C-alpha cells in the first residue's frame, strides 16, 4: 500500500456519465484483479473523502486505469481533472478475486453496471489460466453498456451475454435472468460465480448460487471513510449465530471487498436503502 500522487494521463468520457481515467504513478505498484484504490483530485478541497475505485486495467507497473460513473460530488470532481492533473491515490487496497477456487472448472462472471470495473482484469486472468469463462453483462441501456466498458470485454473474445434494463441493446431485462437460465440448464455444475454490481443484483445472484449450490464470490460496496481499515465505517454484516454481535461486522476495505456470497447477511444492506 502506498499513498502517492499520480498524474492523469487521460480522463476521457466513454459515454455520457462514464469515464476512463488513466494514471501515471511515481512508484511501481503491483495490483491483483479486484483490488481498488482511494482517489481524489489533489486540488479539490471539497468533498473531503477520497473515492474507492476498482483498478480497471494495469498498463504497466506505474500506469493504471479506472472506469467510473459520474454520480455525485466525488466523481464529479474527478471528472473535472484534466490531462496532466494531479490525483491523490492510496493503493492497492483490499483482497483480490481468487482464481483457482476448489474444484471449479469454469467461471460465470456477472457484471452489473459499473461493477464491470472490478472484473475486467479477472476475465483476463481467467483467460490466462485457461479457465472457460462466460460474461453476463448487465447495464441500464446501450449507452451505459458502452460506458461500462463493454468493448473492452468484447476484445477479450470471451462469450458475453448482454442485458439492458431498457432493452436498447441485448436482451431486455436484468442480468440475473440469463444467469438463472444457465443455472437451470445445469451450467452451474463445477462453476464459480464472480459477481460485482448493485446490492440488489448481488443479493439475487447469491440467492441463485445458493439455490443451485454453486460457489459464489462477490465484490461488495460500502461508503468508505479511509479505505485502509481504520475508520470501521465500511462494514457489512456477516452471518453469525443469533443477533448481531462482535464479529458480525466485517470491513469491506480490508476484510473484502471480495467475500463468499454465503457469508453475507443480505438483509442488511451496507449501502443503506
Amino acid at each position: 500500500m502506498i499513498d502517492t500522487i499520480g498524474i492523469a494521463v487521460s480522463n476521457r468520457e466513454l459515454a455520457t456519465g462514464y469515464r476512463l481515467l488513466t494514471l501515471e504513478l511515481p512508484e511501481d505498484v503491483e495490483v491483483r484483479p479486484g483490488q481498488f484504490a482511494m482517489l481524489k483530485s489533489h486540488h479539490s478541497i471539497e468533498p473531503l473523502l477520497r473515492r474507492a475505485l476498482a483498478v480497471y486495467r494495469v498498463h504497466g507497473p506505474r500506469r493504471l486505469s479506472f472506469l467510473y460513473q459520474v454520480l455525485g460530488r466525488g466523481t464529479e470532481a474527478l471528472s473535472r481533472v484534466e490531462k496532466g492533473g494531479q490525483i491523490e491515490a492510496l493503493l492497492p487496497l483490499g483482497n483480490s478475486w481468487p482464481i483457482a477456487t476448489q474444484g471449479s472448472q469454469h467461471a460465470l462472471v456477472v457484471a452489473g453496471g459499473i461493477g464491470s470495473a472490478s472484473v475486467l482484469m479477472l476475465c483476463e486472468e481467467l483467460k490466462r489460466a485457461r479457465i472457460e469463462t462466460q460474461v453476463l453483462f448487465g447495464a441500464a441501456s446501450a449507452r451505459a453498456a458502452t460506458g461500462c466498458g463493454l468493448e473492452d470485454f468484447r476484445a477479450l473474445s470471451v462469450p458475453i451475454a448482454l442485458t439492458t434494463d431498457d432493452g436498447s441493446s441485448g436482451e431486455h431485462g436484468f442480468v440475473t435472468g440469463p444467469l438463472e437460465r444457465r443455472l437451470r440448464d445445469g451450467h452451474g455444475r463445477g462453476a464459480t460465480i464472480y459477481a460485482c454490481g448493485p446490492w440488489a443484483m448481488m443479493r439475487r445472484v447469491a440467492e441463485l448460487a445458493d439455490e443451485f449450490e454453486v460457489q459464489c464470490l462477490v465484490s461488495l460496496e460500502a461508503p468508505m471513510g479511509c479505505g485502509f481499515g481504520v475508520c470501521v465505517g465500511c462494514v457489512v454484516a456477516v452471518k453469525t449465530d443469533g443477533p448481531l454481535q462482535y464479529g458480525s461486522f466485517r470491513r469491506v476495505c480490508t476484510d473484502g471487498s471480495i467475500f463468499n456470497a454465503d457469508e453475507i447477511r443480505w438483509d442488511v444492506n451496507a449501502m443503506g436503502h
Partner: protein
Amino acid sequence: MSTGINHDPRLAVEVAGIRFNNPVLGASGTFGYGLEFAELIDLNRLGGFATKGLSARPLPGNAPPRIVETHGGMLNAIGLQNIGARAFVEEKLPRLRQYDTRVIANVFGYSDEDYIEAIRMLNDGEGISAYELNISCPNVKEGGIVIGNSPAAAARLTERAKLASIRPLIVKLSPNVTDVAQIARALVEAGADCLSLINTIVGMSVDVNTRRPRLSYGTGGLSGPAIRPVAVRMVYEVARAVKVPLIGIGGIASADDALEFIIAGATAVQIGTANYYDPKITMRVIDALSAYCKAHGIDAISSLVGSIVGE
C-alpha cells in the same frame, strides 16, 4: 528508545507529566490501533495517538451504513466496534512497543463499572502513556443520556476512573453542551489530569428519496474541518476556565489549523478525520510546525500555548 530520528526539540511538549516528541497526535477512532499506519508513516516521528475506544468486552458496533459525508465533514455512528481492552493489551501493545511514540488508550463503557473494568484490564498493559476517557460518544446512548453532557455524572465517573487508574487521566469533552467551561471545571475538580476536546457534534442527514436517515443509527457525530471553529472556540473557553493542559481536537488538517488550537490554549492536538483522506497528514503537520517555529523565531512551541492576543 533510539530510533535514529532527529526530533525538532522546539516541538517537544509535556502533558500531565508525559513527554511527547511533538504535539501532533492521532485522534481516537481515526487512528485504529496505530499499527495500521506503520506502512504509511514513520510512527517513530509521531507525537502519539489515541486508540480506538476500548471497552471491557469487544463490541460489535452499529449496523451499516455507519458513515456519510457532509459538506466539510462527515457523520459517523460506528457504535464503538472494538476488539476489547484485553485483546488490545495482548495483541496490539507488544507490537506497538517497537515504536517510540506515546500510546493513549481511549476508554469507553456503558456504565461507570464498565469503564473501571476496562481501565483495570489496561493497567496490566505495558507501553500505555495515559488513558483518555471517552465520556462523549454520541452514538451509543444507553438509557438515553450521554455521561459527558451532565457535569455531575461526568465528575462522578472521572473520580472513580482516577482512583482505578495507575496512569494520567485525560477526559474527553462533549461539545454538545451549553457550557463547556462549567463541565471542564467539574472534571478538573474530580481529578482529571488533562482535558481533550472536542468529540463529535451530534448531527443527522436524511436521504430525501427514501426519507430515511442516511445512517442506520439515525443520528451521528459530525467531524472534520466543518467543526473546527466550534472546537477552537471551546478550547479557548476551557483554557480560561481551568489550569490543566488541554489537547485540542476538531477538524485539524494543517499546521495552521493546529496552531489555532495551540494559540487558543491547547498544549497538544489530535488529528482525526483528516487521516482518512490524507493518511500522511500527521507527518506534514509536524514538518510545517517546525517551519513555523523557524520562521517566527520560536524556541519552544509550548511558549505559544494560550498566547492569543487581545480579548
